[in-house]
């Protein structure tokens, strides 16, 4: 019998590992995908996803069933990602070849080279965004959360979230235009 999230969390609060395993099973793909979208590094995304679920288990007593469980898990994941992004901004970035290789191996990715190229550019543009814009943009435009939900998750006023999404999108657009312009000029030079 499949219990709902609230019941599962009640079980997890008592230390039930089976209920916890059900939660991991239900959310693992969404969390890994979200973190990959945020960080652009699959290995790191998996690592932080594991840490996210550890927090879910050990901080289960802090979960309030007024919000959906997914929002709470995403909040934990986003906070961990934010810390990691801040940390990694001081370290050398993962080369784009790694992303390209991953995309080439990924099951859901088309092998069409133009499409692959576009994905690479979008990925680079997302990576160029600061975390305070990147997280709300990914949550809104890729994960499909509403602005109210994002405001609740990030514990910020809705006006702030709206502004961040808007600025994030503008910056993303500028980055994409720049990369398209750069590749076009490269192509002209090659000709």
């Amino acid at each position, binding site marked *: 019998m499949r219990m709902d999230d609230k019941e599962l969390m009640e079980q997890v609060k008592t230390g039930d*590992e089976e209920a*916890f*395993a059900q939660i*991991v*099973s239900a959310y*693992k*793909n969404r*969390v*890994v*995908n979200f973190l*990959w*979208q945020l960080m652009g590094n*699959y290995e790191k*995304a*998996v690592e932080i*996803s*594991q840490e996210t*679920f*550890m927090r879910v*288990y*050990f901080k289960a007593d802090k979960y309030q069933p007024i919000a959906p469980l997914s929002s709470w898990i995403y909040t934990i994941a986003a906070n961990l990602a934010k810390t990691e992004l801040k940390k990694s901004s001081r370290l050398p970035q993962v080369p784009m070849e790694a992303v390209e290789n991953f*995309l080439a191996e*990924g*099951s*859901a*990715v088309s092998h069409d080279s133009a*499409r692959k190229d*576009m*994905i690479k*550019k*979008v*990925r680079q*543009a*997302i990576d160029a965004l600061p975390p305070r814009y990147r997280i709300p943009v990914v949550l809104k*435009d*890729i994960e*499909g959360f509403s602005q109210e939900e994002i405001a609740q998750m990030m514990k910020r006023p809705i006006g702030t979230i709206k502004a961040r999404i808007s600025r994030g*999108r503008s910056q*993303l*657009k500028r980055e*994409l235009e720049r990369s398209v312009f750069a590749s076009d000029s490269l192509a002209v030079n090659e000709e």
Partner: protein
Amino acid sequence: MMNELEMMKKIQVTAPRNFEQKVMANLSLRKREQLRVRRLRYSLAGAFMGIVVVAAAVGIMVLPRANSSGFAGINKTPPPDILNTRSFGAEDYIPIIEAVDYDGELRSVRREEPSTVYILEQVSYRTDTRTKY
């Protein structure tokens, strides 16, 4: 730009196959670690409590006995004699005043010897120089 983001939305990565096993293994590892830390904390707290109890026992049982034997009178007000001697600037001493039997010291006037009165005087220069009869 929304097209690009739509495209990103369609790209989904999934968790690796052994993800759940790794999470559960991590969980048992963390639980064990927590248990170890909790035990360590309890044993440290126990050791600290033991030290406190021993210190309290020493304070209650040993120190009062020491006071009663050697140091019991140290805080008491000294007798008036000592207070007087201190006013002279003399070093601490224990005054011993012995009762004197003057009968033995005086000779009979009936004898044909000059009567002599012996005056007992304290000789030490280090102590009270007042004459005691």
